[in-house]
């Protein structure tokens, strides 16, 4: 388990890197981009969740993931959960 500090900037970097690894181009990513328009589905988000947990020790479960719609939602959820 990593002990990275979950600052908004740091979480955003980790989430963006994880998403680029999965499929979207980096220039498609911004806070208001929806996962639907990025073609990122629940399996992709499960992979992102794994990366997030590895970095910040924050577990995102199915209910959490089902409530987030945009990249910004995901970043905020991780930052808040890590507080």
């Amino acid at each position, binding site marked *: 388990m990593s002990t990275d500090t979950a600052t908004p900037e740091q979480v955003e970097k980790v989430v963006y890197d994880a998403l680029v690894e*999965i*499929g979207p181009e980096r220039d498609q990513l911004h806070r208001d981009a929806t996962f639907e328009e990025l*073609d990122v589905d629940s*399996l992709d988000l*499960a*992979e992102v969740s*794994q990366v997030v947990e*590895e970095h910040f020790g924050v577990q995102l479960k199915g209910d959490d993931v089902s409530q987030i719609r945009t990249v910004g939602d995901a970043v905020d959820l991780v930052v808040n959960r890590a507080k």
Partner: protein
Amino acid sequence: MTRGVVITGVGAVTPLGVGARTLHERWSAGTSGLEDGEGACTEFDPTIAMTSKEARRADRFSQLAVAACAEALEEAGWDDDGPYPSERIGCVLGTGIGGIGTLEANHAKLLESGPGSVSPLAVPLMMGNAGAAALSMRHRLCGPVYGLVSACAAGAHAIGDAARLVRSGDADAMVAGGSEATLSPLARAAFSALDALSPTGVSRPFDARRDGFVMGEGAGVLVLEEAEQAEARGATVLGEVLGYAATSDAHHITAPDPAGTGAAAAIGGALADAGLQAGDVDYVNAHGTSTPLNDRSETAALKAALGERANEIPVSSTKSAIGHLLGAAGAVEAVATLLALRDAVAPPTLGYEEPDEGMDLDYVPGSARPLDVNGRPPVAISNAFGFGGHNAVLCLGAAA
């Protein structure tokens, strides 16, 4: 009234290259796709048929199937929607093992970094039906869709079962075949432990010096359509699935019945299903693994099922050129058989030089040879046998 089943498209990715014609032309020319004791699809790039994101969501065995399927559907002239209602089109895809590469990679992560490191994609990639599911989703095949597992008979079982679904009226068209990607450390070690692999790395089916099979990877896919509807839409018919039969030896988990009784019953059954006699068969595409046991028992089975006709017709093994593609073998070999029938040619058993005692069929040594068919559409038997004692035999005919 019986519904006929015609073949309107074929696709293959094999150690001889990408494409069904590549397989047929290179094998017929006597080219081997084997290198360093293996048959790898070195010319295959998954992104020829899928985006990099789709490729990431698929084990190599599914990637190979997607590419073979794209080729087959293009040849059949299908657009994105297919020529029939989606719920009337299904898919059966055979595999011996499924996504073993995914399993190995994730097991390594588990041992190295613990359960939390195992990918959420592990199950959807490695499951044996992943290939069938990938084809279904990609081409919106909403009829009967499933993976089929019967070791090295799976590809032929898949085509036979799919043909039955069309014939019975459960579907109007089926995408059928087999896929395998087992050139991995665990699969190599496991087959080696069984003494199944050739220690010399040479595939020479039926030859006295044969000492085991050479493992290969690849996929073969056929498009099957109900004959009248295919004709009505103006499809180009390549050939026909005339008959199919499947039996089991109930003898041994890995060794074939030495007398080939179950295999002979499957050959006879496929002919009977086609309404044909032994004298109607022009060519046999043998299972011909290059193992001491298979090639001898298969020879016995052919003699038992075809009688004197077995001595009159060419019998050759695709595995001499591409190795043993396990669950894909029966499908890739059905593709090779069909294209051989269309050209009325028997491709050679590469490397066959020294006859073995009691094995005296015409194994087509040296080079390809024209089939003696007097202008009528030739008929062939394509054999596939698997660990577990499974025998699946297809009777295929060229288009009239």
